């Protein structure tokens, strides 16, 4: 049997979901026999590839790069999973939404808090501009699977991946699988 082509992506999140993924510890070794990691912040591949079987998306859609990439991911992925609360609900990343546009938080971080030469890093090509409103992934593209948790525990991630590699429909039922936060 050929290996699953597997990707993980880090959007508007803290990387905590990826840390939790690494918490799979020794189970990563048998997992590596079942999947081929074709794109991830922990491997050195710059372009999101074609024909990906499963992509775990950590983080909300918060900036222009996220917005462009999520459409590419959707086109190139069979099973797209929202991975963690930021992807599923926008969570902490979305806490700027009630405050108004991105200027409010940019001012707070880069102008108000800086005594020496306050400036917003907005040169083209340096950091991507924030979009007006942070959105959960499914508000932008269709999502096939939701893995809540901040972060999802390694146990929960393993339960999901075991079902995926077994080719079963993933069941998310009960506190162990569904609790947010």
């Amino acid at each position, binding site marked *: 049997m050929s290996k699953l082509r597997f990707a993980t992506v880090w959007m508007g999140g803290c990387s905590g979901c990826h840390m939790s993924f690494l918490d799979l510890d020794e189970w990563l070794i048998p997992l590596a026999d079942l999947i081929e990691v074709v794109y991830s912040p922990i491997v050195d591949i710059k372009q999101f590839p074609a024909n990906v079987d499963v992509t775990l998306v950590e983080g909300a859609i918060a900036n222009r790069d996220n917005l462009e990439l999520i459409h590419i991911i959707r086109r190139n992925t069979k099973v797209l999973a*929202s991975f963690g*609360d930021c992807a*599923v*609900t*926008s*969570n*902490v990343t*979305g*806490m700027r*939404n*009630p*405050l108004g546009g991105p200027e409010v938080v940019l001012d707070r971080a880069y102008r108000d808090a800086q005594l020496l030469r306050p400036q917003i890093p907005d040169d083209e090509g340096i950091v991507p501009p924030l979009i007006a*409103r942070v959105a*959960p992934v*499914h*508000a932008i593209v269709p*999502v096939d699977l*939701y893995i*809540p948790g*901040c972060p999802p525990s390694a146990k929960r991630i393993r339960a999901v991946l075991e079902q995926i590699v077994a080719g079963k429909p993933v069941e*998310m*039922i*009960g*506190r162990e699988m*569904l*609790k*947010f*936060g």
Partner: protein
Amino acid sequence: MSAKTLTINGKPVSAREDETILDAARDAGVVMPTLCHLDGLTDIGACRMCLVEVTGINKLLPACTTRVAEGMEVRTDTEQLRKYRRMTVELLFAERNHVCAGCVANNHCELQDVGIAVGMDHVRYDYLFPKHDVDLTHTQFGMDQNRCILCQRCVRVCDEIEGAHTWDVLGRGVKARVITDLNQPWGESLSCTSCGKCVMACPTGAIFKLGSTVEESVKDRSKLAFLKNARDKKQWVM
């Protein structure tokens, strides 16, 4: 007092005539999610979690405010009810800013529990992301409107058990919110006795003890039922 005989999910059940469908269901061991219900307080049917189907009535009825009747046929767990319950919970999450990961009530929250019970893995509706205030003017407690689901347990516990009626509801629809006294900061309330019953009654992280941080707001709601029982029946039993 006469007894009524009815069926719940096809199972024959008897109940006192002054009992609600919710009482009868709980006596019969039928589990139904609730949010605005709190033992010891008057039920108001605000949260719509306990909606049931009753044969011969073509609308859904809240079990907590509907009295049992002779021959009633009640269903609590149909496809339609499961669908509506999940919609209701999702709408509660979409209406305000419930950020479980940053909430004092995380892991001890009835809204979170109900989300799990109805199988909510995401919210299908657009989040409103409203701008809401946090009132930290009281010396011991705080009120975070972002987490409020308008169950009004604080309003009722303050009125019915403490007898102060500090809390009430201002506005209608999506603009409704709980207020203290005549919509003044909680710390300036003249009627509040600082008893903390609203903190105990709140199902979410909306009302909390000052100084609580994430996951620290654990509540003991049985004390409220104890007080109500002691007052009404003069039974001082824990």
